[in-house]
């Protein structure tokens, strides 16, 4: 009988010690979790909402616990979230543009450029067809401020207007990013982007983007699609054209007939 008693005692001791160690390891895990990068996985999944991923990811990702922690000595009560009522708004602006690009529905994929490429338009001088803008200054086009807030954009007059950026030297241009105004969804008409060797855009003019499908602006019939302004800006593939001046045209937008620029970035390298 003695060996049996001692055997039971040993089994009990092992069980108790195992239970204690399990509780400890759970507590340690809970304490360590904030430092672990695991939440990034679900965050990434949310940023790319495709049904396939939605179906596939939950098994792959180490999901956070779906049950809230239940400390034994605290009573749990339902969380009281104050639900605000809807706020009334005015008539939203209208977007009815032919040849309109469908939004991607996800962040834009990365654009590949040669190593050493940088924003060569940053703080470069800007001239334009409206030298006395309604709001702001032309220099705001290249000041590096990409917010849509007051004081971050320049507003040019109605009809066809342009801004010209002097890159201060010939450059090979790989892409151009344009932010017109994205505080509300709108589409800018007749967006034309040209690269040239002279400030009047006469010599060696190369059009890298043109969505003026009916040639109302007289710069040739465009083949590119119109697009809705977003905080991502419009990325234009310049295909490595070379030139010193970058000129951007527009002819009002779907909200009003004025023209705006928050920022223009030109990515390229100086020609050796």
């Amino acid at each position, binding site marked *: 009988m003695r060996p049996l008693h001692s055997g039971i005692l040993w089994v009990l001791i092992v069980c108790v010690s195992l239970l204690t160690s399990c509780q400890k390891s759970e507590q340690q895990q*809970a304490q360590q*979790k*904030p430092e672990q990068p695991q*939440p*990034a996985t*679900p*965050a990434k*999944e*949310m*940023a790319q*909402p495709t*049904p396939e991923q*939605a179906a596939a*990811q*939950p098994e792959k*990702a180490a*999901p*956070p*616990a*779906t*049950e*809230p*922690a239940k400390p034994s000595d605290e009573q749990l009560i339902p*969380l009281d*979230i*104050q*639900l*605000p*009522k*809807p*706020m*009334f*708004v*005015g*008539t*939203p*602006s*209208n*977007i*009815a*543009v*032919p*040849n*309109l690009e*469908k*939004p991607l*529905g996800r962040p834009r994929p990365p654009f590949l450029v040669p190593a050493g490429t940088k924003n060569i338009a940053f703080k470069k001088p800007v001239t334009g067809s409206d030298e006395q803008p309604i709001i702001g200054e032309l220099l705001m086009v290249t000041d590096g401020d990409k917010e849509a807030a007051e004081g971050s954009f320049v507003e040019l007059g*109605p009809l066809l207007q342009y801004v010209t950026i002097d890159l201060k030297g010939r450059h090979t241009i790989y892409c151009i990013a344009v932010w017109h105004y994205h*505080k*509300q*969804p*709108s*589409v800018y008409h007749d967006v034309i982007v040209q690269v040239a060797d002279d400030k009047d855009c006469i010599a060696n003019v190369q059009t890298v983007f043109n969505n003026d499908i009916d040639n109302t602006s007289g710069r040739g019939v465009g083949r590119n699609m119109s697009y*809705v302004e*977003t*905080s991502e800006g419009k990325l234009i593939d310049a295909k490595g054209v070379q030139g010193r001046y970058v000129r951007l045209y527009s002819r009002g937008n779907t*909200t*009003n*007939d*004025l023209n705006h620029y928050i920022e223009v970035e030109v990515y390229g390298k100086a020609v050796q």
Partner: protein
Amino acid sequence: MKWERWLFVGALMAGALLRLPQLDLRPMHTDEAVHAIKFGTLLETGTYRYDKHEYHGPTLNYLTLLPAWLASERSLTQVTETTLRIVPVVFGLCLILLFLLVADLGLQSIVCAAVLTACSPALVFYSRYYIQEMLLVCFAFGLIVMGYRLATSGRILWSMLAGVCAGLMCATKETWLISCGMMGMAFLGVLFLRRREGGLKVAVSVRNLSTAILCAIVVSVLFYSSFFTHWQGVLDAVLSYETYFTRAGENTRHGHPWYYFLQILTFTKGDHGPVWTEAMIVLFGFVGIWSAFKEQAGPQEHGRDLRLFLGLYALLMLLVVSVIPYKTPWLVLGALQPLALVAGFGVTAFLTWLPRHLRRAGIIAVTLMAGHLAWQAYRANFSYYDDPVNPYVYSHPTDDVRLVAVAVKEIAQNSPEGATVQVICPGDDYWPLPWYLRTLPNVGWWNGVGEDFVPTGVILVSPEVEPVLLPGLYEKPSPGQRHLYVPLFSRPMFLRPGKEIRGYITLELRDKSQKERTE
């Protein structure tokens, strides 16, 4: 003369057939949804508070109580699109019926005007739109008609009715001042043009005028004071003009060039779909104005003066709505309605000018053109009702809003303990979802992710908010309280063209909902 009466009845029936069916077909516009929710408060609590910055006057809300009571609807959740949109439909049809009171302008002209009013795509489209515009146009025409009857008879009844119409105009929309101002200018224009003929012969006394003004003030105060329960509303109604005059001159939102209205009335062609044109009304409208200017004195002096007045009024309204930079397409109604009326005179003048042997061909051509208008009105309302190629579709929600609402409601219904829904859109740009989700008890509306953000089971969000939302979902909650969120929709959803909305649901809630559904 019998055929004219039958034709008038036919016009009225055509107007009803184009306006009444399937009032719930088109998704609710933001403006309609806002008015609907505001009406819901009035229906449920009996209170209305005039807002001097937006949303216009109270007549639309108060007049919607009638169909709601008739349909025994007592809360917002019971209210349907039909209950709301039947109100502008009734006033759209009243526009046609009011022609009966000016029949002495010439029955043939009136019948032609009735046909054009009944079949005009814009007048039909916005008769099915839960906004104030059709009410304002109807009250404005009512004022002209009652004013005409008053001028010809001098009876006190007409002065009272004219006053009521003016008061209703004032209580409907702040832009009533434009219509009344143009009426005044047209009246002065008639006085000026008739000065060599001894001026106007009107039977209006001081008593008539003071009665009309008193009635207008009483009716207007009645509505703005929420039936004598909120006197601040009367003061706000006066102060509101500062807001609206400032906005009219602004070009920041809804700023369009001067030819915008002429363009949508004469020729619009999108990247697909048909050509849209109401050129017939514009063309015959100008013929009518021309004929009114050229008309020689005859036995019916009052009718001749009214034709001149209406011609001038139509011209001035078209001019003023074109000059004001702020333009939404429904504002064209203020000019289009008098233009359709004078187009009736234009049609009869045109047929009279035609040589006798061509008159039959002229009648056939005019009939075909009116038929084309009716066909366009049908397509605008039953085929292209939310398609941006339709010139009267303006920042309109797509059918996606209904799909979003169905998906969210399905989750809520299949969740054992219901679901709390958060909607986060900057600038409160989530409309018309509050209308479509009105039956759900636990929906919260935010314009950003604040410090106190606590994620719930279902989140509807604008794409631009996502970068701020992610830390709120996966970093801020304590370990053990984080949930995995998965997409709610299988494709990108748009509240309206260019305005995407994304939906996320906790994996746990989705699984529970699916389980509940399969069981």
